[in-house]
């Protein structure tokens, strides 16, 4: 991806890295440029993330948090989880986004300080990241699941979680007893629905299963799930 990084982007990134290293000398060696195809991006250490983000907001005009998400690098990878903040300045640098990333220290019980106090927008984003990845944001005012229900045992965007889902209980045991319905793994005949790219008309590019040579009744020879 390094070819895709534009010259101005690299300059902007190294400028921010230099500024942050000067301001936070004790974590200077852990503040590094981050590969990015578009916007400037930096890696920061998790323990200094809160201070760095507050500094970027107060001194560099990044008053808007436009996104907060995480990356699961793979089961067994270390560091496994990286939290990413997308910062936007609407006063100083309109339209320029700054991406800040920090690795979680623990691979099994990932934690990250919450930025909900400095950007209220982070509240629901952190709840979603907690729901999907299981990253605990310490200091969050109300860290509950936001998409799945309370009591759901998995974190669906983790790499080990299958796209089709897992067999499980319905959120409501009364309804489950009445209807005998359960969470089941979704049928994956032909694989997940994916859109085709390229110079196609809308009918050809719309999302569909790529391999329709097999079905639930007529399974694929090697391994049932996609």
């Amino acid at each position, binding site marked *: 991806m390094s070819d895709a990084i534009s010259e101005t982007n690299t300059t902007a990134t190294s400028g921010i890295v230099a500024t942050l290293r000067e301001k936070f000398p004790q974590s200077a060696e852990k503040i590094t440029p981050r590969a990015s195809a578009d916007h400037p991006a930096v890696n920061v250490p998790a323990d200094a993330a809160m201070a760095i983000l507050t500094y970027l907001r107060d001194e560099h005009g990044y008053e808007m948090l436009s996104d907060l998400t995480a990356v699961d690098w793979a089961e067994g990878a270390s560091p496994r989880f990286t939290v990413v903040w997308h910062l936007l300045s609407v006063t100083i640098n309109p339209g320029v986004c700054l991406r800040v990333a920090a690795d979680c220290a623990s691979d099994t019980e990932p934690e990250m300080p919450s930025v909900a106090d400095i950007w209220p927008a982070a509240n629901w984003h952190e709840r979603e990241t907690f729901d999907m990845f299981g990253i605990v944001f310490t200091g969050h005012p109300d860290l509950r699941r936001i998409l799945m229900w309370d009591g759901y045992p998995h974190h669906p965007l983790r790499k080990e979680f299958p*796209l089709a889902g897992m067999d499980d209980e319905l959120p409501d045991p009364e309804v489950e007893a009445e209807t005998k319905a359960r969470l089941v793994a*979704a*049928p994956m005949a032909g694989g997940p629905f994916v859109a085709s790219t390229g110079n196609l008309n809308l009918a050809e590019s719309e999302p569909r299963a790529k391999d329709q040579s097999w079905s639930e009744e007529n399974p694929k020879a090697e391994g049932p799930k996609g």
Partner: protein
Amino acid sequence: MVTANKEATYNSAIEGDIVVTRLDAVINWIRSNSIWPMPMGLACCGIELMGAGGARFDIARFGAEVMRFSPRQSDCMIVAGTVTYKMAPHIRRIYDQMASPKWVIAMGACASTGGMYRSYSTMQGVDRILPVDVYISGCPPRPEAILDALIKMQEKIRREPSARMLFKEEYKG
């Protein structure tokens, strides 16, 4: 003395205030022409359902214009949209609160089969928790398809042995 009645229509002067018919026919006539829908709008199908209720398509022509947002007052739940596992128990509870007799229309690909959402969060068809009477294909279906489903629903209701069902235990209360 009994005389042959040569009039094709009902004549109150001859027959008095009595109409002879089958109980099933009367009950089903009443039920099928005033289906009050419970609009369970869960996704984009809900927008098409609103279109069917509007003046252009006018669901009132089939006696189903009284969209009731209370399950206590409705006859037919129209499940319009994607049924997630998180929502499914609530749909079932709303269905349980509807008074019998009650019917269910699964509107669109998602409500019928899970549609394009082959994923961990989506129930693969609302018929896993509700007894569906009519399925509508489409993503989302056009309002004409909803009206067609409603007419099929009326035909189904007109075939029901309603009088017998009145005296069955499971249909009481």
